């Protein structure tokens, strides 16, 4: 299993080497073609007001005359849209992203390869050599606790700690069908402990009666902040400082190995606005687009872009181990993990 720490280190080196090329803007021909098309339709999994709107605004400012339209949902919602439109030969969406979107729609052969100039700064692990996908931003998922209800000493530190009877009925997670939902937790356990020990652990964990939320990881963390579930599992660590700054009683736990995942952006096959789609992908992966990602509180994939809370990264001041849910791993296992979640925990 690849460690993200190494990957990030490699990414930093690669980023420095490719600094010059990444700064290069999209070609004039592409920009002209995109302007002729006039708009791009983006099927995104990012949160609209936090990320999608500022990124779209930055894009429209840089390329006036190319309007960004978007629809937002989880990976499953977005994949369903792309697949349905493809079967009806009625294409609307140009660009997709998400942690699980790619593997579903690639299976339906509905992704077009495209390698933007700006992708040069990405580490090799975070882009497809043929250009079918590129990492748009990273996620690190772990546990968190309500600091009013649980002290730092009391809080679970390891996966074994979660089996303590005192946490029975006290935990919640999101069961969305993505590597960033409960399925990713299952995958992480199986990858770390092996099939047999892993399944044994998961069965014991199921006896702890975790609350299954069908909404996002953000609502799971909110439930913990509110005090309904003192412990949250599989929450995005970058959400914790955002809430802490508003005064919320919450802290995240370095429960190693964490789950790491990347939101993959790509071009839909037979997209109605292919050039505008390419231009948007190029922009989002560029330093400028990635600055907008970072400003939204997300963790950019481009190593050139600095973020305010470096402790959120495995390479930060307090390093941590994380299992990366690469597209290959997700492709191969996601369906099985979802089945385990459905059978064991629901």
């Amino acid at each position: 299993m690849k460690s993200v720490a190494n990957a990030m280190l490699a990414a930093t080196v690669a980023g420095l080497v490719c600094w010059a090329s990444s700064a290069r803007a999209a070609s004039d021909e592409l920009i002209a073609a995109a302007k002729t098309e006039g708009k791009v339709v983006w099927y995104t999994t990012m949160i609209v007001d936090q990320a999608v709107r500022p990124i779209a605004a930055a894009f429209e400012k840089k390329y006036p005359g190319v309007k960004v339209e978007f629809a937002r949902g989880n990976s499953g919602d977005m994949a369903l849209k792309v697949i349905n439109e493809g079967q009806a030969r009625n294409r609307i969406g140009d660009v997709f992203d998400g942690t699980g979107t790619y593997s579903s729609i690639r299976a339906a052969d509905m992704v077009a390869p495209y390698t933007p100039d700006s992708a040069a700064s990405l580490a090799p692990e975070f882009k497809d050599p043929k250009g079918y996908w590129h990492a748009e931003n990273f996620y690190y998922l772990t546990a968190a606790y309500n600091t009013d209800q649980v002290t730092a000493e009391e809080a679970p530190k390891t996966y074994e700690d979660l089996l303590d009877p005192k946490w029975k009925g006290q935990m919640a997670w999101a069961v969305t069908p993505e590597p960033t939902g409960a399925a990713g937790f299952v995958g992480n356990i199986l990858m770390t402990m092996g099939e047999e020990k892993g399944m044994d652990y998961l069965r014991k964990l199921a006896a702890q009666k975790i609350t299954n939320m069908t909404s996002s990881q953000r609502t799971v963390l909110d439930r913990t902040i509110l005090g309904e579930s003192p412990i949250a599992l599989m929450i995005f660590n970058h959400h914790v400082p955002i809430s802490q700054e508003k005064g919320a009683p919450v802290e995240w736990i370095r429960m190693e190995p964490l789950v790491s995942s990347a939101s993959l952006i790509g071009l839909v096959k037979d997209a109605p606005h292919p050039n505008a789609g390419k231009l948007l992908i190029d922009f989002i992966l560029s330093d400028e687009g990635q600055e907008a990602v970072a400003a939204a509180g997300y963790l950019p994939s481009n190593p050139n872009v600095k973020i305010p809370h470096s402790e959120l990264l495995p390479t930060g001041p307090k390093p941590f181990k994380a299992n990366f849910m690469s597209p290959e791993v997700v492709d191969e296992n996601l369906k099985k993990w979802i089945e385990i979640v459905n059978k064991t925990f629901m």
Partner: protein
Amino acid sequence: MAMTEQISMNRAGAEAPSLPRRSRNPTFWLTAVLGVVLAVLVLPSVAILIARSVMITNPDASFGGLTIAHFTRFFTTTGVLTSTYNSIVFAVFSTVVALLFGGAQAWLVERTNMRFKPLAYMTTIISLGTPYILYVGAWLFLLGKAGPINDVFRMVTGSRGVLIDVYSMFGMVLIEGFLWSPLVFLLLSSTFRVANADLEEAARMSGANVFQTIWNVSIKMAMPAILALALFVFIRAVEAFEVPAMVGMPGGIDVLTTDVYKSIKETIPPDLGYASAYSVVLLVIVGILLYFYGKLAKNAGKYSSITGKSFRPRPFNLGPYRWVAEALVIFNFVLLLLLPLLALLWLALQPFMRAIRPSAFSAMSFHNFATVFSSEYYRDLAVNTILIGAIAATAAVVITFFVGWLSARRKPGGVVLDQLATAPLIFPGIVMGVAFLMVFLSVPVPIYGTLWALAIAYTVRYLPYGLRYSYAGVLQIHHELEEAAGVAGAGPLTMLRRIMAPLLSPALVSAWLFIFLIATKELAVAALLAGPNSQVVAVGMYDLWVNGQGGELAAFGLVWAAVMTCLAFVFYAFARNKA
């Protein structure tokens, strides 16, 4: 587009009496035109569902080859039994709660001399304008582990436990019952409003006390309407989605609709074949229920009490029991309106969702409201939603006015039209969303992702609701008025325009109001059909909910509920004047 065509087709039908009556039978043509319109609207979505339920879903998400595997899986999965049981318990008890809360209030407000009647209407109208998500969210907060009710319980008893576990069947039933009691109130109040007061007065004069009169006369007279409505609410609760998803799923209680939802949303790629098979089974179950509903509704006419004679009811004197009625209405007001709105206000003023604590009061700000008012996005959501709601309500009311009359009067073909217009009831919203998505993607017209796609789907979804209003309304109007029109030489279409439409207008305006209000909060259908340019309020709110922006959701929800309430009051005043 298609929608305006249907409306103009109906209009054209209404103009038909100017044609020579010898050569054609206007009732026949009306039936034929409506039959075509309804078939085009309703049948493709059913057909695509049945087709998908017996087709193999390939890994590349294409379809091909016939299979019965989806059905086999349905009948061999043990969880299905549990879900069926849960669905029945959930539907039965939430119907009882809704009938108790809404029915009692409807009778008291319409038929007695109690005070505070406006309070009851306000409670109903505002709760009808409040989107379910907002409402359920507020209740989950109030009844939740960290909510004020359990807080007070812990403070009083000193225990660390909870009084109410809201994520339970009990919580589901309570919240669903609360959600439906405004509908029961609205529908039954129109029944009680036109009930003949002579019989109640006769009972009182013959020496019956208040309770004997209510039990033996008022309730017995309304029984056909109550039974039909109970079955209607039961069916709607079987296909309910928001409460099972937001309350049941976190509590580990699955019902039939959440099973369908899971097979679509919690697997990648979505298991549409299994979901379709599941829906087809639901369709059969609901079909059977609807058969009984038809039998009940057939008897509803036997107490029809609007005749050509006077039909102004006089209020029933509760005497010394008046305060009981008033206490009940105030209790409803606090429970259904005041507490949830206060909870939402608390959440809207806080930077993040937190329990009600003195220490949190200092953190209050209008930041969430400022965001909502300054955002163009929210304005677009509101405009789109109002537009779609108005189109769907108008189309559904116009269509069901004619269908309701043809069906209630047992005209040839009326039963078929009734069944076509009632068929959408068998669709859980989420399944209807999938079915329409496929239909819109298969038609050569670029309708997917436009506001029209939503307007058409909403129209179909709310046909049964419009029909219940017009059907029940027609039943209340005695034959003799139509016979009088016939004797005076009017054709059926003239009669519909000059007699039926004016007499039915309270029911039709109520239907419009109701459909508009519930269409503007429709989520399950819109979630799949809304495109980048056709986002609506409910979907926007759902995004905020799943994103965990509870504060902004509460702020936007309060503003939206206020706007909808103003609209609701305008229409209500209109309905009142007409009546």
